[in-house]
């Protein structure tokens, strides 16, 4: 180097000074490119955050009010002659008693001046049909209250609830409003007497779907989702892991396995509705499995999730360093032992991460489930995988289509629940990845 410095040239014959200039000019350009690249990156992230925040703010903004419900405190006298004329507290008799009349009587007691049939009907409309069930449940839970005068919180109708939450404005002309001036006047008198309360909307989390928004909940859809996901997991996970192990560790590398590999990758790109059509044709029409059942939904989603898990599992099996296998083989372990004692445990965090991501995808999937009838209006909570059910995203879809104003906030609230599940699942995937991350 010293003699090149002396002559001012390097072996290529170029003057040394020149090289320095070229390099420093290049460096400036490289740094500029780097700065530009970083700016693009920041802009992209900024945009993503903006979009995400807008989405979240919109959803939470419309949805949060669904977590509360306007309730009316009613004083109800439980006349024994109405509920249990024979007095033997037979549950059958108790559950068929006319509680609606009791609720209506209690309302009439509040507003004695209401006499006309039409007005009475309006007055009865202040509280939800659910009020009747509430009273019945109270009696069935504790028959000893019969004969007493009890104070009970019953849900008010969805329109009143929406009015109280400010979603229906009193400014609008009466003809365009779902709540009449008279109803508003009644409501004000009730408020003056401090009978109107806003409580946490337990119903939303504990009941199934309903035509009445104030009685509708996501529990049915949630159970449906859980049942469907269980079926999906039970089918997809073992199948996918077995496939991945076979392809990575045992299959010979030839044209057939190449073909299989290409097809698995293609399968991952098939639109989900196609799997729905397949499910309809094969599982329902050919095998005659029940419609709208989590069993079939889970099977369809398993088909959809399989390639995702296979690809993730193969990648993480491949990532297990070959010298682990060599070490075990060198000690005389059989190939099965190598797979189950070394490769699989080391690949498991990656496989689980892929599985969770696949399951999260499946949890949010709607289209294929529509094809197999999981879009039906189902009030009852499904008790097993063959009961008719719906799932969270389909519930969102159903509610978003409903005309009642009160379903708007419930749609958003259901989305919030769905998103929280997805966030929890993804967080768990990240946790697994971090917790079991290995540097070889």
């Amino acid at each position, binding site marked *: 180097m010293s003699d090149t410095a002396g002559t001012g040239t390097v072996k290529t014959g170029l003057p040394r000074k020149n090289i320095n200039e070229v390099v420093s000019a290049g460096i400036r350009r490289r740094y500029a490119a780097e700065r530009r690249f970083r700016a693009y990156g920041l802009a992209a992230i900024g945009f993503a955050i903006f979009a995400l925040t807008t989405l979240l703010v919109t959803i939470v903004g419309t949805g949060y009010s669904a977590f509360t419900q306007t309730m009316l405190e009613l004083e109800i006298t439980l006349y024994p002659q109405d509920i249990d004329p024979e007095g033997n507290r037979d549950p059958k008799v108790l559950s068929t008693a006319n509680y609606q009349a009791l609720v209506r009587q209690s309302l009439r007691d509040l507003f004695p001046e209401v006499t006309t049939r039409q007005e009475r009907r309006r007055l009865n409309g202040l509280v939800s049909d659910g009020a009747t069930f509430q009273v019945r449940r109270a009696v069935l839970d504790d028959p000893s209250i019969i004969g007493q005068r009890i104070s009970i919180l019953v849900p008010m109708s969805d329109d009143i609830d929406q009015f109280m939450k400010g979603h229906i404005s009193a400014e609008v002309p009466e003809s365009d409003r779902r709540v009449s001036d008279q109803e508003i006047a009644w409501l004000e008198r009730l408020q003056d007497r401090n009978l109107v309360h806003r409580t946490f909307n337990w119903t939303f989390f504990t009941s199934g779907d309903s035509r009445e928004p104030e009685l509708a909940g996501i529990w049915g859809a949630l159970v449906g989702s859980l049942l469907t996901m269980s079926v999906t997991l039970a089918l997809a996970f073992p199948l996918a892991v077995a496939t991945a192990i076979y392809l990575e560790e045992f299959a010979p590398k030839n044209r057939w396995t190449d073909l299989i590999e290409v097809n698995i990758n293609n399968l991952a790109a098939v639109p989900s509705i196609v799997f729905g059509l397949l499910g309809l044709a094969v599982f329902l029409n050919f095998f005659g499995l029940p419609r709208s059942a989590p069993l079939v939904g889970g099977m369809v989603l398993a088909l959809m999730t399989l390639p995702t898990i296979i690809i993730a599992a193969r990648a993480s099996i491949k990532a297990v360093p070959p010298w682990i296998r060599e070490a075990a083989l060198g000690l*005389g372990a059989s190939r099965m032992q190598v797979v189950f004692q070394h490769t699989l445990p080391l690949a498991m965090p990656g496989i689980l991460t892929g599985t969770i991501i696949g399951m999260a995808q499946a949890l949010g999937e709607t289209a294929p489930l529509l094809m197999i009838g999981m879009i039906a209006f189902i009030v009852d909570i499904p008790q097993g995988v063959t009961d008719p059910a719906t799932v969270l995203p389909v519930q969102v879809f159903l509610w978003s289509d409903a005309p009642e104003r009160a379903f708007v906030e419930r749609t958003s609230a259901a989305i919030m629940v769905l998103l929280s599940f997805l966030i929890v699942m993804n967080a768990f995937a990240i946790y697994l990845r971090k917790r079991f991350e290995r540097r070889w």
Partner: protein
Amino acid sequence: MQLANSENAAKDGVGMPEKTGNLTTESKAGRTPMVVARDVDVFYGDKQALFGIDMDILPNEVTALIGPSGCGKSTFLRCLNRMNDVIEGCRVEGRISVDGQDIFDRALDVVHLRARVGMVFQKPNPFPKSVFDNVAYGPKIHGLSSSKDELEEIVMTSLEKAGLIEEVKDRLHQPGTGLSGGQQQRLCIARAIAIQPEVILMDEPCSALDPIATAKIEELIDELRENYTIVIVTHNMQQAARVSQRTAFFHLGKLLEFGDTDQIFTNPSVERTRDYITGRFG
């Protein structure tokens, strides 16, 4: 993998013992060789990596394999416990026997072979498990111990023989990957000897280690010689000279010279060996 042993044998019409007689390296002491390789060819796909290797490896000796990079030392070593089986497209022809048993014999399960011919790799490769579990793995899968105490004894003696016991006796249940490179390599040796193999193959066991760790392992190899037959690949001429009794010089897939280490290092009969040992090529 395709085997052509029986064909070869039939063609040659020569039994193994007779052929041994032709070799210059016939066991002087009259000991029966532990490993006998005859006319071993290895192919990776179409490419031939080893050409007609004949070698007798004597028990309780250290045999060093030396030669320039890519000459097929590792390939030969991996033939001896059939680790080449797992390499796609690798084909071994010829005959190899360990302790008198043909290793390509259909009746011999490769698992048994590998239990008898242990291997220590170039890069220390402990399992990501505890020190104890690393050593206990082999005995466990082969069912060498009938009780927990017995297993513990095997592990402890193996660690002791590998000269590691002092350093790890307080951290038996910490991950083996947390040890230093030299300790890891000795752990791998302990793991290999825990199943009491007859032969231990070592592929450049010290190449990732500093001189002090290397010295420890060399010392260990010398001690292990008492109970085991050791084949070691090394690029370090001094190491070969220090630890081995016999040395094999490979070049371009052929075994050019094989003989007593003293003789090879002081008075090699082949010109190329001399050049390689003195550092003129390779």
